[in-house]
């Protein structure tokens, strides 16, 4: 579905926009993910070619960083802080309760594709934890209710 002419031309546009930068690979990958919600496999050889890199090298970069997704996430992404300062404020329970609230046994995406729940290691909201980010909305002193509300 992705290797249409549209996909190619948009990808070329993204690459061209970043090519003058020093070290353009991460900015390109961020832009690709912003466009398609993940790093589509067919994009890898094209990017590699444009930057004079090996395909394996680009693939290696994509897989190194937690942010880059191989497949699209759910419509709403909920990241619950799993780091120490939030643990001290009930963060461990919040992680479990959030998973339960969306019918998940573990981190991942619901079957209907509506929600992805993931851990995040610190949002810098450690003095008002536990913290979460729902889509682009930050939630301090989070509860399952406030997370669900933000996910509406």
């Amino acid at each position, binding site marked *: 579905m992705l290797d249409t002419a549209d996909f190619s031309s948009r990808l070329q546009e993204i690459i061209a926009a970043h090519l003058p930068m020093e070290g353009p690979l991460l900015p390109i990958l961020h832009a690709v993910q912003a466009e398609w919600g993940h790093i589509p496999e067919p994009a890898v050889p094209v990017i590699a070619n444009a930057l004079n890199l090996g395909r394996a090298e680009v693939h290696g970069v994509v897989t*190194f960083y937690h942010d880059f997704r191989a497949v699209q996430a759910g419509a709403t992404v909920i990241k619950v802080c799993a780091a120490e300062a939030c643990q001290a404020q009930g963060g461990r329970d919040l992680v479990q309760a959030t998973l339960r609230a969306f019918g998940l046994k573990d981190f991942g995406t619901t079957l209907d594709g509506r929600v992805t729940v993931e851990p995040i290691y610190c949002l810098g909201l450690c003095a008002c934890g536990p913290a979460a*980010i729902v889509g682009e909305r930050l939630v301090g002193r989070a509860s399952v209710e406030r997370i669900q509300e933000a996910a509406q």
Partner: protein
Amino acid sequence: MKVYVPRDAAARSLGSDQVAHAVILEASRRGVSVDLVRNGSRGMVWLEPMVEIETAEGRTAFGPMTPADVPALFDAPAKHPKALGPVDQIPWFARQTRLTFARVGLIDPLSLADYEAHGGLSGLRRALEMDGDAQIDEMKLSGLRGRGGAGFPTGIKWDTVRLAHADQKYIVCNADEGDSGTFADRMLMEGDPFTLIEGMAIAGVTVGATKGYVYIRSEYPDAIFQMTEAIRIARLNKLLGPMLLGTGPAFDMEVRVGAGAYVCGEETSLLNSLEGKRGTVRAKPPLPALHGLFGKPTVVNNVISLATVPWIFANGAQAYKDFGLGRSRGTIPLQIAGNVKRGGLFETAFGMSLGEIVEEVGGGTASGRPVKAVQVGGPLGAYFPASKFATPFGYEEFDGQGGLIGHAGVVVFDDGVDMLQQARFAMEFCAVESCGKCTPCRIGAVRGVETIDRIAQGDAAAMPLLVDLCDTMRDGSLCALGGFTPYPVMSALTHFPDDFARMKEAAE
């Protein structure tokens, strides 16, 4: 009527956007004209969203505010149920020595005019009048040490880069701030981004670098937005560009966004990431100062190190050095977090004891239960029991107690915490975030989780294995991720042995 409602991420996470919206609505309902400023946070996070109004007596505060509390602001502010009085008289605030954070929360973060009116740019102006030797002497005399964790003297690092010969040098600001319990970099970038720009410009002038990068973690969308805007405004006003402030040498900078790897806070991993590579750690030497970004001499400094430079140049190195304790000179923005009554950012001279920080400033736990442990310095920092509360906050002082100050995060836990679980988490985190370059870290951390699980199941024989494993990781890791993970693990085991014996007793 001038009203301040923070745009800081912590304030926003507690509803400050809705409060700001309510201010606009109420003003238009009453036909009052308001000048609404979205400032940074004053750092009293338990009072956020904290609204301020400019009055004849200065700025008065109200908090924590909800949209429902807003209409009463327009009636009799002094009688408002959430009134806190003048900001500078709130004891928590008055007790601080705010040098690096002086303008955070005070000014409109994206107004260059406001910035200058509050002392901004005077450091850069003074630096531009000095020659290279004088600039370096100023830095060395200040005693400023890296606030990113390692505590290396900033002036000495800069001098190495300055003396290196190269066609291109770089200033790289480490804004990866991955340590749990820390948010000083975030608050500074959101609340006073021009200070960081000015600090990087002074660094550029001093070492002869013309290009800077701020590498900000992707978990900080607000800081990324604010820094990007500030750089654009600085360029527009010729603060940055071919001639600094229209007279100086060239210096420009840009924001780069991380991609969710904790290890990319390590400086050489960060440089690899900026170059578009996997964020694996490079062996040192060569030092980044000589062989850094794209192989060029590079200053890598933490946000707070760089953002403190303008104050030093504006007020003089000696004035900075006069604060502090022992070899820890100046001030440190403490980040008080976790299960604590009054959490937030508290800037003070080095030397306050951990007990004072937790009990007096922080007010003890939010739950009201006794403090059991305090983790200082992020996920690689040790857990301190209350018996070590006399330790004064300083690099050497914490080192002497088997800990580190790191980026000055102080995370409080009440007696509900299970220290075995905290030790397990430290190993798990190391396993997840390891760059994979060395075996003691990559494999050791996975073994560490397994070993702690055995201890949890009552296998006492696993205890010496854990100690050995920690020794191996400490001695055989290339960087502090593998090398320092033993700090939280061993401190938990040493100071809270009961938590590791619990299961065994249950099994007997």
